[in-house]
């Protein structure tokens, strides 16, 4: 190999990574993804901390995904300590997670990905040339944050979600406000689907990876992983994903016991359980359709959130104290869907309720194998193209996976 050059920093993604393009003479012959974010060593930070501290610390893994990290950690802790939460707490958490889904997808589609389709540099370019589209996305994003704030007390690192329940139950006035805002955003979401599904593809079609998603609960929740052929129980999921340390990345890589890498995230969720109404948008299910999958999921999230708000309003939003958790020895594993795909939190506690083992597996680390294969395929598909074209396409391709590198490395 005569020379290589890195895409210095991947931009318009969360966290720090790069793509290395390997050249042989004038030709780009290979591409490698490096997730070079500095590890904060979360699994080590959590050891020695009491059970009630775990969700508060673990949610700091990532800001965009902080609500789902919080809920996932809470579920694992509560399972370990045999705490049963109320129906109301369950509904509130589910609603908060849908809020996170809405915020994350709107951020990605309208602030991070859209500039690729429109040929502008990012939010600054959007504000200058496509202000209405940026504002359309920001209105949806704001609603996602409003949901997270109403339930979690804050859009990022939601402190009001605690072991056994919530700090303060949001009142029916606040819930009614959410109901109105959700109804108000429906037209924006419909317009987004029409707009995004009409954008011209900017990448060649690439092979589809086998899909994997969480199943067995309400949307985004569950107790197992499913693929088109297998069902894997939550407590076997870590072994099935089979994370290994590799030299080129700070994020552990899922090896799936030597099988071909799986895709997790919006496109995987939809291809495994496609609602009939949206099937016609996905005649092409290669990764370039992921942006479309995100706007469809925006619709699904808003619909689900409306249903949850109605259930909570009908139930009456009772003030309630969190269920008291008693320190005890135990283990718990939660699997759920973060905006970018399968998220696993698993903890073991000693008889004083102190954390003795922690394992966190995140969607972007799982997707590394799929991204690597897509990059190699892109290089072949673009053989003969100018270096700068390949470089730009490689970055857009990685962005289709909406990587969250703070999560991946943690």
């Amino acid at each position, binding site marked *: 190999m005569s020379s290589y050059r890195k895409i*210095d*920093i*991947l*931009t*318009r*993604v*969360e*966290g*720090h990574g790069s793509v290395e393009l390997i050249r042989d003479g004038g030709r780009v012959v290979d591409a490698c993804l490096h997730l070079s*974010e*500095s*590890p*904060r*060593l979360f*699994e*080590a*930070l959590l*050891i020695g*901390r009491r059970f009630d*501290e775990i969700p*508060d*610390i673990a949610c*700091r*893994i*990532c*800001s*965009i995904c*902080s609500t789902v990290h919080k809920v996932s950690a809470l579920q694992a802790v509560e399972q370990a300590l045999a705490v049963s939460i109320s129906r109301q707490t369950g509904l509130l958490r589910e609603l908060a997670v849908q809020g996170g889904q809405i915020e994350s997808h709107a*951020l990605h589609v309208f*602030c*991070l990905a859209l500039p690729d389709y429109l040929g502008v*540099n*990012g*939010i*600054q*370019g959007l*504000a*200058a040339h496509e202000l209405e589209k*940026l*504002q359309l996305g*920001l*209105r949806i*994003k*704001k609603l996602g*944050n409003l949901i997270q704030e109403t339930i979690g*007390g*804050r859009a*990022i*690192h939601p*402190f*009001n979600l605690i072991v056994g329940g919530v*700090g*303060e139950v949001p009142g029916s006035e606040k819930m009614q406000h959410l109901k109105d805002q959700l109804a108000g955003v429906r037209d924006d979401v419909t317009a987004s689907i029409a707009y995004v599904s009409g954008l011209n593809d900017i990448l060649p079609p690439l092979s589809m990876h086998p899909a994997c998603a969480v199943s067995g609960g309400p949307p985004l929740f569950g107790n197992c992983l499913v693929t088109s052929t297998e069902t894997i129980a939550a407590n076997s999921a870590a072994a099935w994903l089979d994370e290994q*340390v*590799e*030299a080129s*990345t*700070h994020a552990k890589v899922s090896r799936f016991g030597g099988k071909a890498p799986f895709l997790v995230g919006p496109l995987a969720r939809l291809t495994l359980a496609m609602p009939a109404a949206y099937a016609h948008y996905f005649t092409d299910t290669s990764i370039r359709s992921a942006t479309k999958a995100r706007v469809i999921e925006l619709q699904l999230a808003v619909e689900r959130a409306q249903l949850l708000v109605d259930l909570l309003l009908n139930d009456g939003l009772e003030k309630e104290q969190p269920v008291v958790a008693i320190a005890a020895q135990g283990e718990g594993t939660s699997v759920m869907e973060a905006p970018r795909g399968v998220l696993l939190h698993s903890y073991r506690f000693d008889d004083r309720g102190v954390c003795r083992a922690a394992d966190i597996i995140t969607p972007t680390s799982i997707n590394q194998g799929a991204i690597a294969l897509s990059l190699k395929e892109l290089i072949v598909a673009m053989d003969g193209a100018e270096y700068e074209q390949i470089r730009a396409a490689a*970055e857009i391709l990685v962005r289709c996976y909406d990587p969250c590198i*703070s999560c991946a490395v943690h």
Partner: protein
Amino acid sequence: MKKLRVAIAGLTACSGCQLSLLNCEDELPRMLELFEFHYFPMASSPALMEGEYDAVLVEGCLSMPHEKELLQELRRRSRYLVALGTCAVCGGVAALRNGEEREQLRQSVYGENQVASETYEPLPLHRVVQVDAAVTGCPPEKEELLRLLAGLARGVLPVAIDYPVCTECRMRENLCLLTERSALCLGPLTLGGCSARCPSLGVPCEGCRGPVPEANLAEALEIYAEKGFDKATVRDRLRRFCPEWKL
């Protein structure tokens, strides 16, 4: 009017401080009129530093060799350098086991493999460069961020907050979680400015904004002891966001 040139960079962190800025959905279009976010890899391409900046906002702590170089480069190019968020100001969550053997922590995650062996114990920005202003919090408050930007647009830096979370908590007439409910609330020792966000919903302050200047640690420890919290418990809780607490 000439737009102010601003750089926004993230080091070792969760991107929450940068996201807090992007979460100003109503203000963002106006912000993009007033400022040129020239270097802002999370939201703009390419990641290319060029020329001088009126201000640079830096999220995160330092834990990798190249981060120090990046920070020094940003410092050289900028009139003001603002530490954005608790990681940048105090070290933050990533630093909560500072003082322990880093290699052992690394190995507990990566095993014998040498992956990430060049990383080091997280440091706040002021240990490496001069910091002109700080907006603390995990995450920072949106209003504080907007005040910072509004100030920068007028050429001034924000006035540093010097009162604890308790001050705002009392103004909101909240029940005191420490004295009335015997909860380990860090409000007395933690920098205010958040309108006592957590205690107002009955959730004890976890100290996410770092220490208030001239915190009366001795007196607080006495109250915590009366409520049944030993020194080690209080220390661990305080160090969740700031390893520099000495007790």
